[in-house]
């Protein structure tokens, strides 16, 4: 099962490499990963998605917690949560396709953020699933380039990951 693990870690050089290194060292996989500083400049928030059964995920969270640089950790998939990913996608857009792509983009609540004579660049935010669907929905159109941020997320309600 896919899990979204989100953690606060020391905003220091080397902290990220310890987290990523742990995954390769112990043979865990990372499906997506993103990291940036938080409102507290001494902390970074890292969110990753990984696959594994319960015992594997338990090991992953325990091993992550053991890293001295990891301050706090939550498996968002344990409870109800909001997840978002941003995608920029560049597609070939000529002739009748231009209108069709625009319509699909609207349906998915995306925005065309750059327009060229033969290409559109579309911005889309949502769950990883939704982004996958959008890429599939492009159908006939030629996808030239895709870039995705990886999943980030927060728990719903009052639950907060903080010091």
């Amino acid at each position, binding site marked *: 099962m896919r899990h979204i693990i989100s953690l606060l*870690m*020391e905003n220091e*050089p*080397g902290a990220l*490499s*310890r987290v990523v*290194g742990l995954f390769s*060292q112990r043979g865990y996989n990372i499906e997506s990963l993103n990291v940036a500083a938080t409102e507290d400049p001494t902390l970074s928030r890292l969110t990753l998605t990984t696959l594994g059964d319960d*015992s594997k995920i*338990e*090991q992953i969270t*325990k*091993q992550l*917690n*053991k890293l*001295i*640089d*990891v*301050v*706090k950790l939550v498996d968002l998939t344990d409870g109800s949560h909001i997840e978002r990913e941003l995608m920029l996608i560049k597609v070939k857009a000529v002739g009748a396709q231009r209108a069709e792509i625009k319509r699909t983009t609207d349906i998915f609540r995306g925005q065309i953020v750059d327009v060229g004579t033969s290409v559109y660049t579309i911005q889309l935010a949502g769950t990883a699933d939704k982004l996958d669907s959008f890429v599939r929905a492009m159908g006939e159109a030629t996808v030239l380039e895709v870039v995705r941020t990886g999943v980030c997320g927060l728990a719903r309600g009052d639950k907060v990951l903080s*010091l």
Partner: protein
Amino acid sequence: MAKPMLSGGEMLARALQDEGVEFIFGYPGGAVLHIYDALFQTSDIPHILVRHEQAATHAADGYARATGKPGVVLVTSGPGATNAITGIATAYMDSIPMVVLSGQVPSHLIGEDAFQETDMVGISRPIVKHSFMVKRPEDIPATIKKAFHIATTGRPGPVVIDLPKDMTHPAHKFEYEYPDKVKIRSYAPAQKGHSGQIRKAVDILLSARKPVIYAGGGVVLGNASAQLTALARLLDFPVTNTLMGLGAYPGSDRQFLGMLGMHGFYEANNAMHYADVILAVGARFDDRVTNTPSKFCPEATIIHIDVDPASISKTVPAHVPIVGPCDAVLDEMLDIARERLKQEPECLDRKALAEWWQRIDGWRDAHGLWTACRYAPESTDLIKPQAVIEALCKMTKGQAYVTSDVGQHQMFAAQYYRFEQPRRWINSGGLGTMGFGLPAAMGVKLAYPDADVVCVTGEGSIQMNIQELSTCTQYKLPVKILNLHNGYLGMVKQWQDMQYGGRYSESVYEDSLPDFVKLAEAYGHVGIRVDRKEDLEPALADAFGKYRDRLVFLDVHVDPHEHVYPMHVAPNGSMRDMWLSKTERT
């Protein structure tokens, strides 16, 4: 009082002193020259100049295992740092507290492929508990404090501090103050176990009919031997120790079943397999213990105490996990169990326990290594390696510090030396590092100059760090080296015998081995060669008597075709599936 103004190098020297460091094991080089000069001018801490950086880490490791205090290593950048890696990994796998100070090229050259530059923090990352690179000289005291705190608390482990050369420059002085305490917001190892879980565990223990206590290196590291022994005796439960746990329970005690695992005792492995309750303390269900995890102890309810939550349910799920230091958890268990037994003396099923002990004694009588001699010494004129260890144990009354290398000799030592106390058996259990034994023995001998320190080794292992004979000369370290000489890489040969049709691919030395007696003599030591059974005990007596103050290299030529038994049947075997000799299996 005004704070002293010190350079980075001086702060480092002073901080080590303030930390109570007794020895530094190291090797100088370009990137650490400022530090070495500061040590020369300001430090009283004895520095042990090894002959190879790997030996510095093993010596610090041996010191740490014997004393419980952190070992300290100082090496230069580049090759100095990479040579230390095997020793750091060794310490990491066995959770040994160690602080490694590595030099680094000056900050402005980092990343430029400068002379003797290597990314030490990067290279060591998977094999350290934590690491630091010093970015400002004034951070040195706090970094040292943190490093020692991390290395020695919770599940111990090695910590690396990488020091760019400009951080220790003698011209730049800073106010020095060594912090009293340290706070790391993301690091708070458990101080005690969960009381509810402990209570539940005691209930299960008291209702056990076929219990076993399976105690590992965590009991030794956590100084919990007394508590473990008290609990086992209170409940009259059998105890088995892992390779790392030997000495955690007194070897000659009736309740001790010997080591368990791949080369574990028949009675220990059987007791585990048929147990209804297993109390695992400071052990990690290593693959060398469990054999096939899915077939491991099918009937057992498992209680697992460990200070490291990640060790619990990693390979074998625990029914009652207890995260906490072994000593504190066992203390609490003891209190509860004593109370319960006082209130209801009948709560322990003593009849079932008596039956269980009867079964265990049956296993002991059938194939126990200590009940009768199982290796047929009379079948040959050659000395059996097991007999050498038994003679050593007798000569030293089970009280020596025994370090070992890795291979058959290590297993023979683990099986036939009866360790009565913790911290006396010093071996590389997790990483299995050949070349560990001699430098580790140096570290132990420095810590305990009056104790008997023996390195049990083989021709393969000893040659991996034989250069340390020179260090022993320089610091007058009269360790005893007991080389079980069989002319092969014995454990490799054993596997080739058992699984590769006796094809000895690169496990034979032929006539290439040195004359170890002359070699020892060349370094100024005593060498004794033993070929005949009747010469063994006199040679040992000389080593510990006449040559008490000398390093003695005992080169004992043993039966080259001996195998270590029992040995787990693999793959797909369970704990009880063992080879008992070349021809017998369970």
